[in-house]
């Protein structure tokens, strides 16, 4: 059943048109005195809601360890193929030698990235995060390719509740498997 809305025919004053213009004018006149709804951008920044998908970044855990283990899942899942990872080994003398792998190079081409967030979704280590950065600019194409340092600088450290690799190490040492 289609919904039929009955339109009231215009009454005499509305047909005269002028009173309605006056009504419109009074509406806009009231608007003049209202506070502007816009932000003056570079000085006033919008509050970024939680779960915002900004620029993808790499994060470290509270111990200062790079969380990425260069599994390259994000590289495979990335729809525009913006991510390039060159895996590397973690040196023997490191505290985290048992993690075995870490990224040697990690590049995200921000000219290709579509901010879909699939890399974050797929990451088993919660190492790649789309955070609240939204304004990105540069003078050349090269500038807009974020390398590993840039990514860690943008990402910073996020709180971690699991400390997965520490637990693994402890488990391996004490022999109490899960």
């Amino acid at each position, binding site marked *: 059943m289609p919904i039929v809305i009955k339109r009231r025919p215009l009454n005499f004053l509305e047909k005269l048109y002028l009173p309605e*213009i006056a009504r419109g004018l009074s509406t806009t*006149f009231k608007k003049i005195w209202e506070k*502007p709804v816009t932000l003056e951008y570079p000085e006033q920044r919008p509050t970024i809601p939680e779960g915002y998908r900004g620029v993808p970044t790499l994060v470290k855990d509270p111990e200062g360890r790079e969380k990425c283990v260069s599994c390259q899942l994000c590289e495979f899942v990335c729809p525009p193929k913006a991510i390039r990872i060159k895996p590397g080994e973690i040196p023997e003398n490191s505290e985290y030698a048992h993690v075995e792998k870490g990224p040697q190079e990690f590049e995200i081409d921000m000219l290709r990235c579509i901010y879909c967030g699939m890399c974050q979704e797929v990451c088993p280590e919660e190492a790649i995060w789309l955070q609240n950065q939204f304004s990105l600019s540069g003078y050349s194409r090269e500038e807009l390719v974020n390398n590993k340092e840039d990514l860690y600088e943008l990402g910073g450290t996020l709180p971690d509740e699991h400390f997965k690799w520490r637990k693994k190490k402890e488990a391996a040492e004490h022999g109490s498997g899960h």
Partner: protein
Amino acid sequence: MDVNPVILKFVYAATVVSVIMGLCSYAVLAERKISSWIQGRVGPNRTSLPLIGGIPLIGKFLTRLGIYQPVPDGLKFLFKEDVVPAHVNKFYFIMAPVIALVPALTTVVVVPFGRFVTEAGEVIPLVLANVNVGLLFLFAISSLGVYGVVLAGWSSNSKYPFLGGIRASAQMISYELAMGVSVLPILIWVNAPGREGTLNLFDIAQAQSGFWFAMWMPVSAIIFLVCLFAETNRLPFDMAESETELVSGFHTEYSSFKFGLFFVGEYAHMVVGSCVFTLLFLGGWNPMPFVTLEALGFGEGILGAILSVGIFSGKMCGMMFFFMWIRWTLPRFRYDQVMKLGWKILLPLSIANLVVYTIFIFYLDTKL
């Protein structure tokens, strides 16, 4: 000291034209500010001049108000690339903006903007040319402004400008009639038997020391106002431009300084239109109905003259604000509605209005 009167006239003319140009540039700023306020935005508030902008408090305040904005706005027109498309009729393409601007600036000549009373009680109008047929002169010259629009549309040799030009000419013809007829009651009243016959804008303004004409001829005032909107091509009657249907109408192919001339021309028309409405219907420089400056004790001398100019400019700025206020309130009419309004409503209404007021004025003049 004797100065050649011709040179003196040139100086006066240059002064008045530069004042009008200044008003136009600040009208653009006002337009931008008012539109932003109505739309809940802030508007231009960044442009600052070196030195003046640096003055603490005031400089910052003026910057926020956008006082310096007209400077870059004007310079932008000068320095942008001036494109003349290959398919245009070059001569008329270049002539059109000039033809659009010149009548708007010429009409200023007969618009009085104040009065000066000498100690002997003689009233001297502050006007460039105090001609007897002032009002008709104004109508005549401002009606020439449409050629700028029509020629721009035609010479651009492209669809949308052409449609814009056609619409402008049709609209101009339709609304000029109603506009002319709507002011006739005023002229009849001012020229009634026993009075000094005149079409002089100064005398019409002076005749409103009692009732203003807008008060006892409201229908005339409304018709005239609507036609004024149509004649200045302002929204809701900007058929020639109508940027949502005709790209940007007659000046689609124009860029840089030529576009700037059209732009200034539109605002100059608005300034002159506001002046004329103030003079005809809002009592000119009389501060309030039934209260003249003389009655307030500011009749004679420089102070009285400055006050009269001030009051007049105040009313004119109020009218300019009204123009902009309407623009940001009402949507554009459809083209056939514009024609219908002009021919089927405003014209008959103005004729009926004329007949009623003719009888009324006859009654007032003979029986009272």
